[in-house]
């Protein structure tokens, strides 16, 4: 429960979000706690969205030249 969002991977963050939704839908949560959960949920949504856009679409290859290596675009 106390794990920082920044340390979660995408799948864990999604699972946490689903857990929050399960709790909110059960209807037994006191109002203050519900608002807090909602805020957490929205933070997770934002985080997951960022994670999906993180990669830049680079396609590179490794070139070995004797003992040296380099990375070039394909």
């Amino acid at each position, binding site marked *: 429960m106390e794990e920082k969002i920044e340390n979660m991977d995408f799948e864990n963050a999604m699972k946490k979000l689903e857990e*929050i939704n399960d709790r909110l839908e059960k209807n037994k949560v006191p109002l203050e706690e519900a608002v807090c959960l909602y805020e957490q949920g929205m933070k997770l949504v934002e985080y997951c969205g960022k994670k999906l856009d993180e*990669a830049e679409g680079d396609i590179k*290859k*490794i070139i070995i030249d004797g003992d040296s290596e380099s990375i070039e675009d394909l």
Partner: protein
Amino acid sequence: MIYERMEPESKEQKVYSVTDLNLYVKALLTRDDNLQGIWLRGEISNFTHHQGRHMYFQLKDDKSQLRCAMFENANSTLDFTPEEGMDVLCKGNISIYTARGEYQIIVTEMLAGGLGTLYLAFEKLKKRLHEEGLFDEQYKKPIPILPRRVGVVTSEDGAALRDILSVIKRRFPNMDVLIMPTPVQGKGAAEKIAKGIRIIDTKDVDLIIISRGGGSIEDLWCFNEEVVARAIFDAEKPIISAVGHETDFLISDFVADLRMPTPSAAAERAVPSKHKLLKRLSDEARRCARALENLVLEYRTRLERVKISPIFRRPEMLLEDFAQNLDESIRELDRNIRILLKDYRLHLKNQQERLRALGPEDVMKRGYSVVLDSSGDLVSSVTEVSEGDLLNIKMTDGDIESLVKEVKKWKKK
């Protein structure tokens, strides 16, 4: 010699029985050391395994063939299954099946030649690595759901790479890919593939796909080599093996963390559909907002219900009851006290009456008096008094101070 036992019809021309001839030839053949323990190479044809016991087949090359028999005691220890068309090496003894006059070889040992030898070695290696634990489930790493960068070990020019890149682009357009180009067949390919795996394992990739796009089993053989298996097992990143042979499993398939039948299938498994993930995310976001909305609505409704309840609007209603109860209690208490008092007064009066009845006043009114001595003590007997004593006589209306003149005690009757 056998033929000496025969009875020729004429002394000039020796005529033999078939059996004798066959036996003679058999003896000839079996006596020749060159023909015993001989190694032959050929292709199996007309293979039968009679009732699962003795094997009968032909060995042939492009010009000739030879009948073979391999009896149960020899064939039961074979570590492979001989098959029609298989290229094999056979060790055996040339002989004749006399009853049929058939020239044959009795096979005592058989090895799979050519590709068969390869298969043998493959089976041995597979068994050894399996026993070492390289195929065990416990060492298999899970494939990450959303990798940041995918590593690919394959030939730069092959169809495999094209397929993989196209699937990745389609499913997740902004996915990063790092390629380690390696030869995937030919001499020295296994060592180069192993080296490629070791290099890309040190790079910033979240998983590795090893792939080639099909080909004959000989072309794929480098993925059956131990050096490749070791490299896959030692790697820290999860590895998907997709080396393109639909039905057979190569050793790299067994060691890898996941095996897929084709390069495209590997790419689909490695990379999620961004569209699906976005949809899942937006569904959850909506669910969250809606859940909160419903909660707030429910709380508001409950609040409204409380606000319109009679107690809420006129809270003094609660007090009214209390006040009434209190008044009632006080009245009750008052009533009870009065009753008690009345009882006590009556009781007191009765006691006073009794007291008076027991007291001397009434008696004294009838003429009796109380006699006290000079100390104030009651005198109730003449023995307490002597002549000359002072006595106080109390009457109902006063005292009489008197002096005793004479004391006379009455005699008992």
